[in-house]
């Protein structure tokens, strides 16, 4: 029988080995994206690709901005995502507050109905939405993309903020109301600052959905200059010429805002902000 200590060591060794393997599998494709993005064109299309490059170049980046509609699609995606995020957190904060703090008939039904909309798959609403938006004359515009982002982002955000608001002691709000705040003021000055981490999380969620959307913009807009980055980059694959260097550097650029938000968002979450505010 192996001693406890040896067994423990073996177990730890195995753990680290498998962690290394997992990290390799996770990181290799991302490394390959970056490498492809900075490889000179001559090194990209070889039957035996090199696993690194001695001549990193910005040619692909230059080509991406000057030979593809990347710049305008970047602008589209940014405008749509920022507008949708602002709208979504406003709408979700109001609704979340209403569902967690105010008592009225039909409240629980509304809460379940909203949760239900989160579960309806996009394939289900796609075709009627297409007909509806075409009647409104909103096809081939950025407006329809803001709307689809809202449809994707708000149900979950409302659900999350409802939970957040429920966790904030009612006494805090009552104190503000006794000091003469209206409901909206109490919401803006007491509840929202405390719920900031939750709101940031909802913002990140909606921004990500909006930034990454592919199926809706592809179907609703048929002009290149109205596409989002996701549709635009995927569209470069089926061109006549291989543009993998440009696609990969573009994919990297497209990932930056989303990844940054995740990193910053994690730091923003401060627990125990309300700890000690109410005694007893």
């Amino acid at each position, binding site marked *: 029988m192996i001693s406890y200590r040896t067994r423990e060591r073996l177990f730890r060794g195995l753990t680290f080995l498998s*962690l290394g393997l997992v990290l390799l599998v996770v990181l290799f494709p991302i490394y390959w*994206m970056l490498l492809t993005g900075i490889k000179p064109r001559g090194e990209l299309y070889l039957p035996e690709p090199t696993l690194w490059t001695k001549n990193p170049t910005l040619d692909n980046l230059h080509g991406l901005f000057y030979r593809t509609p990347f710049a305008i699609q970047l602008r589209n995606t940014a405008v749509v995502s920022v507008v949708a995020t602002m709208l979504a957190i406003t*709408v979700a904060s109001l609704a979340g507050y209403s569902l967690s703090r105010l008592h009225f008939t039909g409240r629980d039904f509304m809460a379940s109905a909203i949760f239900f909309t989160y579960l309806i798959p996009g394939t289900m609403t796609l*075709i009627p939405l297409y007909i509806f938006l075409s009647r409104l004359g909103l096809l081939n515009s950025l407006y329809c993309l803001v709307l*689809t982002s*809202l449809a994707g982002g708000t149900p979950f955000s409302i659900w999350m903020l409802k939970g957040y608001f429920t966790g904030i002691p009612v006494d805090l709000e009552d104190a503000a109301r*006794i000091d003469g705040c209206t409901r909206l003021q109490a919401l803006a000055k007491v509840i929202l600052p405390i719920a900031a981490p939750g709101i940031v999380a909802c913002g990140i969620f909606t921004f990500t959905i909006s930034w990454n959307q592919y199926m809706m913009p592809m*179907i609703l807009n048929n002009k290149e200059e109205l596409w989002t980055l996701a549709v635009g980059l995927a569209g470069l694959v089926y061109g006549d010429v291989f543009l993998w260097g440009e696609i990969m550097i573009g994919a990297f650029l497209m990932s930056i805002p989303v990844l940054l938000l995740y990193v910053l968002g994690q730091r923003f979450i401060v627990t125990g902000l309300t700890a000690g505010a109410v005694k007893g």
Partner: protein
Amino acid sequence: MADTGSDAAGQLQRIAARRLGPQRARRRRLRIGEEALIGYLFLLPAILILAVMVGYPALAGLWYSFSNKMIGFPKFKFVGLENYRELVGEVTLREAVLRSFTYAGIAVSIKLPIGLAVALILNQRFRGRGPARGLVLLPWSLPLVVSVLIWSWMYNDLFGVFNFLLMKSGLIKVPLNFLGEAKLALPSVMLTNVWRGFPFFAINLLAGLQAVPDELYEAARVDGASRLQSFRHITLPGVRTVAMIVSLLSFVWTSNDFTTFWVLTKGGPGTATKTFPVVTYETAFMALELGKAAAIPVLLIPLFSVLIVLLTRAVSRRELER
């Protein structure tokens, strides 16, 4: 001294009366009406957006599914169950539906054990655990199209890195056409889905693992339980509900996934990777038969309702557990 003290107290009282008096009265008088009114008012924007963008389309889809609506023709008439009769008879659709669900089922049953294993590793104490957790989450945090594009490039039959690595290591003699060969296409798409999806399982299961109290493990160790026994009797029951929720969610997302298929294979070669979202898209926007396409998701409502009911139950069970 005493004078100023009582004066200050009186002033405070007057301020309090001025502030509280009318407020209290107003609140009492308008309590129910005001609260309900504000409640509905605050909820209104959300209801409007969701009714217009989700509720109405879901119902309208049902409506159009009984019609022969085509793109480019404003006029259409109702054809009863004609679309459904046609669709049920179509082998392509039947195969596509079956393919979607087997694909999603297999993908989930690969992601779940890998996710659990990774969660168990990341739950150990070691230096660099925080960064390791962040790195594992990377594939899931990347935009979907970005991860699919990376894999598409790595699968490339002429210049892809996979063929290079497999040939170099002697595993294959001739380059494989990962996405162009009928037998390889679906597994290749699935591998992309697994790479992107397992971190979602891992991070949620990790949260589930952290919620299991340490005392349970300590008690088990004192009682002489082996590592395997505590895994079987403490860890697994502890993460069961989370595993259920994550698997159901992932199953719904994976079977409804359009992006991965459309960017990698467009449903090809032949019908090898045609899933029902791809068939819906093709029927609507290539054959231009909107009415018929609208009927496809309606046919799947029974199945998705079962999944949604299961999911809602699991979520509420999870909330009770907390």
